[in-house]
């Protein structure tokens, strides 16, 4: 996990402590100290994600502020915004702006409204078009993080990003009072990352999302979390999806013509 706690121990005081015997609860000394089985703490209170199951596993009980939270996706469109929507809507309700950098496709305003987000409190920044020469793709993101005036940032990072670029962003995020989500491709899983929170997202059936916590300030979590996302499917369609996934091992049934004319 993080090597930070040991390096933060004052070297001069360490022998004194050992002479007196081991300290009963060393985590009370400093907010950035914690034991291996505990969750890390931070001075800023976290932003609840809206999923109780996930909040219970995140240090501080929600998405951390002033640091990057890295989400790894196999491809866009697996429920990543439904996962973040509740916390982004909370940021907007507090009167602050949400910025999206390089979303993977055109953003649909009606869909945002259905998710409870306010399009008036959202800015989309396209950096990949490079209308003018010399525009650096991460420059805009870094500026937004550094300014400290943006409520929340959701950024889709370019592929094969060098780890020092991510570290730069992580340093810039110190000034950013709010969650900063960076979304990357799943292949980045094997590479080192400066983000203190890393999650891998997988679709797990209709309106379900499986989450693996790759890294957090706390003990490792081996089992993936299954979250029920805000539903797209009606109850009937959901039953149909479940029946399909159960019957997937058997021969898939051809689509009936009745499905088309059923307007109900």
């Amino acid at each position, binding site marked *: 996990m993080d090597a930070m706690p040991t390096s933060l121990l004052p070297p001069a005081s360490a022998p004194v402590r050992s002479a007196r015997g081991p300290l009963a609860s060393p985590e009370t000394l400093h907010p950035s100290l914690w034991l291996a089985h505990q969750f890390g703490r931070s001075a800023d209170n976290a932003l609840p994600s809206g999923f109780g199951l996930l909040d219970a596993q995140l240090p501080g009980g929600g998405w951390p502020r002033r640091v990057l939270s890295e989400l790894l996706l196999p491809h866009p469109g697996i429920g990543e915004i439904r996962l973040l929507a509740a916390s982004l809507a909370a940021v907007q309700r507090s009167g602050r702006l949400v910025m999206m950098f390089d979303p993977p496709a055109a953003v649909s305003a009606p869909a945002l409204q259905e998710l409870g987000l306010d399009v008036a409190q959202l800015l989309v920044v396209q950096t990949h078009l490079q209308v003018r020469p*010399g525009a650096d793709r991460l420059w805009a993101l870094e500026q937004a993080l550094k300014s400290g005036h943006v409520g929340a940032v959701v950024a889709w990072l370019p592929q094969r990003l060098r780890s020092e670029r991510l570290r730069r962003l992580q340093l810039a995020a110190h000034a950013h009072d709010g969650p900063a989500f960076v979304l990357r491709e799943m292949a980045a899983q094997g590479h080192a990352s400066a983000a203190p929170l890393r999650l891998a997202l997988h679709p797990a059936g209709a309106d379900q999302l499986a989450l693996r916590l790759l890294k957090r300030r706390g003990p490792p979590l081996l089992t993936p979390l299954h979250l029920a996302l805000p539903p797209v499917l009606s109850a009937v369609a959901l039953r149909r999806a479940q029946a399909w996934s159960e019957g997937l091992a058997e021969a898939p049934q051809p689509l009936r013509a009745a499905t088309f004319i059923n307007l109900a």
Partner: protein
Amino acid sequence: MLWVGLHLPWLSLESFAATLPPAQAGQPLALIDAHHIVSANACAQALGVMPGLKRATALSLAPHLVLGQADELRDAQALTSVAHAALAFTPAVSLAPPDGVLLEVQASLRYFGGLQPLVQQLRATLAPLSHQVHCVSAPTAQGAALLSRLHDGLHCADRPALQKALDAAPVWLLAAGGEHREALQGMGLRTLGELRRLPRAGLARRFGVALLQELDCALGDRPDPREPVSLPPAFHSQLELFARADTTEQLLYGAQVLLARLVAWLSAQHAFVRRFTLQMKHEPRWRHSTESPAVTVLEVALAEPSRDAAHMLALLRERLGALQLPAPTLELGLQSDDISHRPPPNTELFPTPQSEHAGLTRLIERLQARLGREQVQRLEAVADHRPERATAVHPAEPLWLRAREAAAHRHEDVCSAAPKRALTRPLWLLPQALPLQERHSRPVLDGQVLHVLAGPERIESGWWDNSLAERDYFIAQTIEGALVWLYRARLPLSAERDGWYLHGRFA
């Protein structure tokens, strides 16, 4: 009356140094006029270059000496900027050419909390113009002007104190005294005090009345009306660069000087600039070319009126970085006449919505300067059933930011009132619907059969604007569990090919 006299001992040299590229600023500099050195900086004086030397002598003493032509117009522009900056403190500012500015501050003392804080603020305001300033206060204008040439930080509270300070001053301080310097020296007159004790009639006969009049003005025995500086309605300042500027950095270094002058002009009238133009006069292609040299005009419009030189410089940097100039630049000019008068922003200890709003405006402005205006977008929901037209994308403007704050409150009510119901629209829309293969009359995406779960939802709209959409939308699931939005074009009316299309993904 209380006058503050500002004297800029190195005005000509400093205004010349501003035209140099940054690398040359620390080198020995000297100004020449008619082949004689008129002024040399400390670095050059250490090498023995003194005012009065011939050009060839100076160059033999210091081969690396950077020689510039003395230019009264350049000095006058620099002095005018100092006067503009001083206008923020009192309306009664007058020039004392060639290198002095006088301020009548009696009426401003109470507002600034006394002379000491006023002088302190005055120095801080003048600092960006990068001039060395001597500052003296005295009850008379002429007295303050004379003493500022000798002292720095002297304060004469009343007439006796002024008289005492003047008595100790040398006679060459008076303009007429400098003229008759040798004669006065021959008479054994060194200080103004010695001069004052002589019979006036004899002095007037020998040296003319000008000498006595000057002395009387300084002591306050004679009225001394001064012409106050008036502010031009539009700002225009030019800077001829000493060396041609090839890079953005060199241009910015020159533009910094002009921006400092612009800020001085703005603060004199408590205004903020809305847009300004930077003109770059380029080198002609041939030395003896008769055609007028090319001029590049860069217009910078600010989203929020500002007088923060650092912010304007950052915007210029972004704009210049994206600009390709046809030739090296020889001369810079800055113009502005679009300003807005408004109360200055409050300074706050803790972040407030106002400061956040200002910060956001600046952030958006910087992003737009670098990326292009259309790259920072805001969205708007449009009442249209066709999904590709239900979202309008606009470039973000600062006005929108203000409207946003008002909308924030309304949004709160809407959100709390909205019932939880199933989502019907996907967040990610493909820019172009993707035709899908079919296998056993079922859609196939990436080689995997899609399972249609819900639908159809018929969208039939747009016959009036020539982009008729007649589609049946379905929600389908991929084999791994992600949800996608498909449609079938309805035949035979639709122009689209028959079959399945992928139009969006539920994120």
